[in-house]
C-alpha cells in the first residue's frame, strides 16, 4: 500500500530528533497559550513566525501546527476547572465541564477531554493522510479559472461561517483583498498604493497585520474590561473514569470525531464551529441529551473530540489546494511562503518530507499532548496564577522584537501599531477580523488567477461558467450565499454560534 509506505516515510521525518523536539515545544507552547485566556493561537503563531525563519521548513511547520492543536487541549483545561474558556473552541466545554468540576468530577472531565481529543486527533490524522493525495490529484487538473472560483467559494464560505453578520464578514473579506493589493504589481512592476514608501513595495506585512489586529487588539480589549480572576477552588479529584462515564462517552466521542473531521475541512470552519456543532448534535441525538448543561459527560467528550479533529482536518485545504481554511491556516501559508514554498497541489510531490512529516507529527504531537496534559495538569493550573498584569507587557515585548526582527526595520513596528488601532476599531464595531486575514492572503493569488484566466479566454467572462469545475464551484458559492439569505437558516446559525 502506497499510503503505508508514505506514512512510514512521514514517521521517519517526524521522529527525527529535531522534529520531535520542536513538535514537543509547539505542543507545550500551545497548551500554555490555550490555558492562558487573552492570548490565542493566531497571535502566538504570528509572534513566533519570525523565529521560524532559521529552521528548515518542515520543522517550522511542525512546531506551528503543534501550537494550534496544543491550544485545543489547553483551552479545555481552564474551561473545565475555572469556567474560563482559554479558546473560543472550548466555550461549550465550559458548559458541562465546569458543572462536572463542581460535582467533584473535574478529573474525569479532564481525562475524557484528553482521551477524546487524542482519539479524534488520531482519526483525523488518518483522514488527512488518506484524502490528501486524492484531493491533490483532482486539484492538479485545475486551470486558472477553476482556481479563481475555488478561492471565491472558500472566501464566501469562510465569511458565511464567521460569527455575526454575513454581510459584514464578506465586506471584511473584500477589505482584506484590498489590503493585499498594496505593493508592486507582479505583472507590470508598477507600485500600487505604496505612497512612495519603499518598505511597502513588498506589500503590507502579513505578520504586522496579524499581530496588530489579533495581538495588540486583544491586549487592549482585555485591559479595558478587567475581569476578576477566579481562583481554582475545588480539587481535580481522581482522573479515572467510572465504567458508566466511559460507556456514555464512547458514542459522543465517535460522533464528535465525525462531525469535527467534516466541519474542519470547510473554509472558515475549524475548531470552534465543530465544537458548537457537536454540542448541538449531542443535545439532539444522545440518550442523555436532556441532561446536557447540568454536568453531563457527553457535553465534554463530544465537543472536545470535535474541536481537535477539526484542528487537524483544517490542514486539508491548505496542504492539497493551498487555500487556508481559517486565520491560523492563513498564517501557515505565510510561514510556507517565507520559506520559499508555494502551498498548493504540487506540495505533496515536491515536498514529501513536509507533507507526510507534518501528518505524522500531528499524531506524535497528540500522543505528547496526552502526556503533557494528564499527569502534568497541576503545572498548567499553576500557570493560571500568573497575573495578567505581568503577562501583557511580556507579550508586548515579544511582539515588538518579533516584528522588528522580520526585516530589521522599525517601519514594521509602526505598521503593527497602525493595525493595532484598526483592530481596535474593528472589534468595537463588531467587524470580524479573521475573514480579513484570509482575504489578505488569498487576494493576490486570486488576482493572478483572474488575470491569467481572462488573458487565456481573451477577455470573455464566460470562461468561469463554461468550465465544468469552475461552474460547479461558482454554483456552490451562489447556493451558500442564497441559503444564508433565508431567515430560518440564518437564525439557526446565530443560535449555534452564540451559545
Amino acid at each position, binding site marked *: 500500500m502506497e499510503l503505508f509506505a508514505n506514512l512510514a516515510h512521514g514517521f521517519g521525518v517526524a521522529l527525527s530528533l529535531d522534529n520531535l523536539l520542536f513538535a514537543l515545544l509547539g505542543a507545550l507552547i500551545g497548551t500554555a497559550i490555550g490555558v492562558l485566556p487573552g492570548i490565542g493561537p493566531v497571535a502566538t503563531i504570528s509572534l513566533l513566525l519570525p523565529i521560524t525563519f532559521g529552521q528548515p521548513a518542515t520543522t517550522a511547520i511542525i512546531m506551528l501546527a503543534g501550537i494550534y492543536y496544543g491550544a485545543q487541549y489547553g483551552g479545555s483545561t481552564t474551561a473545565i476547572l475555572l469556567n474560563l474558556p482559554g479558546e473560543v473552541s472550548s466555550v461549550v466545554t465550559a458548559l458541562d465541564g465546569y458543572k462536572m468540576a463542581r460535582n467533584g468530577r473535574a478529573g474525569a472531565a479532564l481525562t475524557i477531554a484528553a482521551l477524546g481529543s487524542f482519539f479524534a486527533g488520531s482519526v483525523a490524522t488518518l483522514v488527512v493522510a488518506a484524502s490528501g493525495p486524492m484531493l491533490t490529484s483532482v486539484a492538479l487538473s485545475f486551470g486558472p479559472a477553476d482556481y479563481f472560483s475555488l478561492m471565491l467559494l472558500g472566501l464566501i464560505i469562510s465569511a458565511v461561517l464567521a460569527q455575526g453578520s454575513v454581510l459584514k464578514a464578506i*465586506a471584511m473579506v473584500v477589505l482584506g483583498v484590498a489590503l493585499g493589493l498594496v505593493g508592486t504589481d507582479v505583472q507590470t512592476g508598477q507600485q500600487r498604493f505604496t505612497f512612495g514608501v519603499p518598505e511597502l513595495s513588498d506589500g503590507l506585512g502579513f505578520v504586522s497585520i496579524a499581530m496588530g489586529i489579533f495581538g495588540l487588539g486583544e491586549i487592549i480589549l482585555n*485591559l479595558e474590561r*478587567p475581569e476578576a480572576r477566579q481562583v481554582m477552588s475545588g480539587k481535580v479529584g481522581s482522573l479515572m473514569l467510572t465504567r458508566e462515564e466511559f460507556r456514555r462517552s464512547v458514542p459522543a466521542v465517535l460522533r464528535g470525531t465525525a462531525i469535527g473531521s467534516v466541519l474542519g475541512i470547510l473554509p472558515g470552519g475549524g475548531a470552534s464551529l465543530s465544537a458548537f456543532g457537536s454540542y448541538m448534535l449531542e443535545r439532539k441525538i444522545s440518550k442523555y441529551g436532556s441532561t446536557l448543561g447540568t454536568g453531563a459527560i457527553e457535553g465534554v467528550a463530544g465537543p472536545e473530540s470535535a474541536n481537535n479533529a477539526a484542528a487537524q482536518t483544517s490542514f486539508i485545504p491548505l496542504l492539497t489546494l493551498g487555500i487556508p481554511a481559517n486565520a491560523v491556516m492563513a498564517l501557515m501559508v505565510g510561514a510556507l511562503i517565507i520559506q520559499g514554498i508555494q502551498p498548493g497541489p504540487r506540495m505533496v510531490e515536491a515536498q514529501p518530507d513536509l507533507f507526510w512529516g507534518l501528518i505524522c507529527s500531528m499524531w506524535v504531537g497528540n500522543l505528547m499532548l496526552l502526556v503533557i496534559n494528564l499527569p502534568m495538569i497541576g503545572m498548567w493550573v499553576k500557570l493560571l496564577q500568573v497575573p495578567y498584569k505581568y503577562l501583557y507587557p511580556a507579550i508586548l515585548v*515579544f511582539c*515588538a522584537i518579533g516584528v*522588528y526582527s522580520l526585516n530589521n526595520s522599525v517601519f514594521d513596528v*509602526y505598521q503593527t501599531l497602525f493595525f493595532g488601532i484598526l483592530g481596535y476599531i474593528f472589534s468595537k464595531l*463588531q467587524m470580524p477580523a479573521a475573514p480579513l486575514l484570509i482575504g489578505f492572503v488569498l487576494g493576490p493569488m486570486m488576482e493572478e488567477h483572474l488575470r491569467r484566466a*481572462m488573458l487565456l479566454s481573451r477577455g470573455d467572462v464566460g470562461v468561469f461558467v463554461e468550465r465544468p469545475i469552475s461552474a460547479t464551484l461558482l454554483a456552490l458559492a451562489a447556493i451558500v450565499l442564497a441559503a444564508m439569505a433565508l431567515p430560518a437558516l440564518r437564525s439557526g446559525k446565530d443560535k449555534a454560534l452564540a451559545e
Partner: protein
Amino acid sequence: MKISTKDLWAGGILMLLAFIGLYINGGLLGFGLEQHTLGSARRMGPGYMPMLVFWLQFGLGAMVFILALTNGPDPLEPWTKLDLTTLAISVAVGIIIWRVMEGMGVTTNYVQVGIACFVALLVLSISPAWRPLGLVLASFAIFALLLEPLGLMLSITALCVISALADREHNPISIVGMSVFLCILCWFVFIYELDIRVPLWPTIFG
C-alpha cells in the same frame, strides 16, 4: 427608528476607504488621481483588480450602511466630552508634529512617525476610557523610537514602564522587577539563542 450605530459606522468606514482607494487608483468615473493603468478585461492593467475590489467594497459598505438603519438598536458605548476632546487634540497634535518634522527634514528611520504617534497616543490616554489603547500603543511606539539609538535593553524597559501604566494594579516595584526579568529573558531568547541583529546598549556613546 432602530438604528444600529455600530453598523452605521462600519458601513461608513468601508465606503470611505473604498472611495479613497478608487480616488487614487482610477476607475472613479473619470475623477480622481488615476495613478494606475486600468487596461481591459482581456489584458488587465495594475489598476483593474483594485477597481473591481473597491467598487465591490463600496457596494457592500453601502449595504451595511443602509441595513443599519433598521437592524438595531446596537449603540456604541457612549463617549464622554473628555473622550472626544482628547481624541481630537491627539489627532491634531499627531498631525502637526508629523508635518513639522517632515518639513524640517527629520525623517531618518521614520522618526517623525514615531514621535508623532507617541505624543498623540500619550495625549489620548489622558482620558480614562482611552488609557489602555493609548498607553499600550504608545509603549510600542517608544520601543521603535529607542531601539536603534539606545539599544534593546533600554527600549524593553521603556516599553514595560509605559505599558504597565495602562493597568492600575502595578506599583513601582513590580514594574522594575518585571522590566529586569524581561530584559534578561529577551537577551537570552533573542540575542543568545536566536542571535538577531540589534544593538543591545546605546550606540550613541560607543
